[in-house]
């Protein structure tokens, strides 16, 4: 076989691999959206879930998903960015740092169901927070923290060394350099990474089964007192998210239209995650463009 033929075969092989990846994605997305989109209407998005009758909606589940997401990000973004800055800028290259870095990697690869079990033991049982938004958000924080740390460290490491040196030779301190040069330059990458992790958190179910619970109290969207048990923003009430709802309806749902509700919910979930990804790309490209001076 001569070099040209090999080259062509290799190219063909790579194109095939890419086509399989793209094909899988599109058929999966197409199937889910096609199956579910016809069930999505205003009523479905804004009605309470029903327990045994047909025609229930996903209002509370959708709200819970977003609320849980917000709280998770509230915990994991500042912590993760601080950890990433430490690893990228302050940690000396020694055994302790290497150990810390492998801890982050192990944490990132923990099965989410294990994180859920741990969350149940610690937050639900030991701290007596019960199945709650707070327990769920903290479990998701464990699950999301390594991702944010990694994204921050990589984004900071990707900033060209000459930018850092340029700031140092002007008599800037390390922190001034991080704050005014490194973080702004790392921001597009950081933001893209965070938004992508948002998609993962939004779709997570296993870690929430034992921490946020499978039910939601009758939420009263007129009651915004965080201590009231029916308040949508009470962090100590149980909260079934959209992805947990899909699992619950499919496995032990007794409503006659379980298939329809599951299909509709899946489509909503997939569309939201897709939107997060598209927004991540657009925002990243926009900032890149603004800052490169075009």
């Amino acid at each position: 076989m001569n070099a040209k033929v090999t080259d062509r075969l290799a190219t063909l092989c790579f194109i095939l691999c890419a086509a399989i990846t793209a094909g899988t994605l599109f058929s999966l997305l197409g199937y889910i959206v096609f199956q579910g989109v016809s069930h999505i209407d205003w009523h479905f998005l804004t009605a309470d879930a029903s327990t045994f009758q047909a025609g229930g909606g996903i209002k509370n589940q959708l709200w819970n998903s977003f609320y849980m997401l917000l709280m998770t990000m509230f915990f994991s973004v500042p912590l993760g960015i601080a950890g990433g800055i430490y690893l990228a800028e302050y940690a000396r290259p020694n055994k302790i740092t290497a150990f810390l870095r492998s801890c982050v990697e192990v944490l990132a690869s923990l099965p989410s169901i294990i994180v859920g079990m741990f969350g149940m033991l610690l937050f639900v049982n030991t701290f007596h927070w019960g199945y709650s938004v707070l327990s769920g958000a903290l479990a998701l924080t464990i699950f999301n923290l390594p991702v944010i740390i990694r994204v921050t460290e990589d984004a900071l490491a990707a900033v060209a060394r000459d930018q850092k040196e340029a700031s140092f030779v002007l008599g800037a301190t390390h922190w001034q350099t991080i704050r005014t040069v490194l973080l702004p330059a790392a921001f597009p990458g950081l933001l893209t990474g965070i938004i992508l992790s948002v998609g993962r958190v939004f779709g997570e179910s296993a870690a929430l089964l034992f921490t946020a619970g499978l039910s939601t109290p009758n939420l009263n969207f007129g009651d915004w007192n965080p201590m009231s048990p029916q308040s949508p923003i009470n962090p100590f009430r149980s909260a079934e998210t959209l992805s947990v709802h899909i699992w619950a309806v499919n496995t032990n749902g007794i409503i006659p239209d379980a298939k329809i509700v599951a299909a509709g919910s899946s489509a909503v979930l997939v569309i939201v995650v897709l939107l997060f990804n598209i927004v991540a790309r657009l925002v990243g490209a926009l900032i890149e463009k603004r800052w490169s001076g075009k």
Partner: protein
Amino acid sequence: MYVLTLEKEKRIVQPNPEAMETELKVNNLNVFYGSNHAVKNVSMEIKKHAITALIGPSGCGKSTFLRSINRMNDLIPGAVCKGEILYEGINLLDASVDVVSLRKEIGMLFQKPNPFPKSIFDNVTHGLKCAGIRKKDVLENAVEESLKLAGLWEETKDRLKHSALSLSGGQQQRLCLARALAMKPKVLLLDEPTSALDPVSTAKIEELLMSLKKRITIVIVTHNMQQAARIADQTAFFYEGTLVEFGNTRDLFENPTHTRTKSYISGQFG
């Protein structure tokens, strides 16, 4: 050597460098990168308000030498500097030296123009803001003054809010110079500042350096021997980490005492 013939007349009116005051006195400087002995026992006196050029083949330790003056080697893990660099009676290598204030007095310019992806104005004010200067009129005056010194004011005065990345390579390098000058440094270290620039931009930078040396001590690393011959009062030739020869530029280029200097400046290796 013919490189100097064009400049000879100009040089005659210049003061004899050896009679000038010393700004930096280097005694037995040794720099190690781990097990690599990059600068070996270098001693030299850098004259005040003069241009000192450091020449030599790649990897000869001249950049490392330069970066040890403003302690930029501190950023490299495993780098160790031993010896003395005396500046105003202080050993700059001493652990008690505040590197932040040191770098305010001893500025640096790099090979590749490295403006921040911010506006021209913000680039010039970066060092000043980090030093705690917030007053708008002070910053505005500093920007105008520094850009004028760097010969960039006329080209940029109407677009100070534009991104620095919209400037050409030569303009970017002059912006980096303006940014360094805004700190009013006493010494300016330049690490091959024109090697990424076209001849016209190079000539502009050289012209600027000649006018700046009235108030600033300049140390320049260069690969371009004509450049050293054109602008430097004194020249040091480095080879494999050692300082082979150091003296008045004219003497070094016209009557090198070492054979290695001779073969380097005549282009036999490098």
